[in-house]
């Protein structure tokens, strides 16, 4: 039996270590930020990175196993990355009292409308499709 090539060894190393996968994902984000800076596109660099990764995965240029555990870890622990942002509330006294209640109203009423509209449209699409298929 031949010994595994360097390429295969690196691949299996990345498959086993979440932290290396996170580093790979971060590398794509850095690349995305670079593209945004160079082209002045009005979107966040993460979006470009997402598009890049999705394009590489769907065209089978890269193996999903190199990214999937790292990506799921980043998504799973995402709340941690917001904790510093939430701490900033101490700097916003205007949210206490009257204004806070108004904002709560906007969120509650807005969410009811968004959910109702979305669900009815999707349900109509699915029902139409089934009727179409049944014919």
């Amino acid at each position, binding site marked *: 039996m031949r010994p595994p090539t360097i390429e295969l060894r690196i691949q299996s190393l990345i498959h086993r270590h979440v932290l290396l996968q996170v580093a790979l994902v971060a590398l794509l984000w850095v690349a995305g930020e670079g593209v945004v800076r160079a082209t002045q596109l009005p979107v*966040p660099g993460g979006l470009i990175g997402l598009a890049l990764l999705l394009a590489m995965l*769907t065209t089978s240029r890269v193996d999903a196993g190199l990214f999937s555990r790292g990506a799921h870890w980043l998504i799973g622990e995402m709340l941690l990355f917001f904790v510093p942002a939430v701490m900033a509330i101490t700097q916003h006294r205007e949210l206490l009292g009257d204004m806070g209640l108004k904002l709560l109203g906007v969120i509650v009423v807005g969410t009811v409308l968004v959910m109702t509209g979305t669900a009815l449209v999707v*349900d109509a699409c699915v029902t139409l499709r089934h009727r179409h298929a049944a014919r």
Partner: protein
Amino acid sequence: MLHDSPALQALAWSTATIAAYLLAKRIHQRFALALTSPLLLAPVLLFSLGAVTGVQYLEYFRATHWLGLLLGPAMVSFAVPIYERRAIVAQHWVALVAGVGVGSMLAVVTAWLLSSALGVTGPLRLSILARSVSTPFAVAVSRDIGGVPELTALFVILTGLIGASIGRLLLRWLPLRSGIARGALFGMGAHSVGVASASRLGSEEGAIAGLVMIFAGLSNVVLAPLLLYAMR
């Protein structure tokens, strides 16, 4: 001693933040209530620690800034669940596009009209526009259109927590025939908290909710600046 060295401060406050988050996560797994969400519980723990040690917020923010930067890689990561569910996307893309399109429009327009009607203006109104989508997207949108990113982050969290409860009530009243519609309702209206609720209904609901949440975030990054320009 802590006040002298920025490196020591960064280490101390980052460790404290991660520890508070992990503890909050344990508590949330035990009780699984909206009120025990790590995003509410961890800051409360840190506030009490900050009150005891008399830390200045700016000092805390400088020390933990790097944690927020990880939202960039988190956004890139969403490519993986999209890829894994490509069969569902291919099968239901019409319903997904229609739902996300209508939902995103409704989210931005209702937020704008309701805030204007209630007298919420300026950066606060801009900050609440993006609140319906998953936080990494929402924070990016808020920064682009002139809102306050940390306020948007707070509104997103509140929307998720409130939306999950509203969604369960709406399911009783709305005559929905498909699991896809139930999933889309939660993914569009309550992002990641909604995805968790939808997953409890079934695997189809959960998968659709996750996809709708991601696509809503993507479409908002593109749509919000355009809509805002049109409404001015």
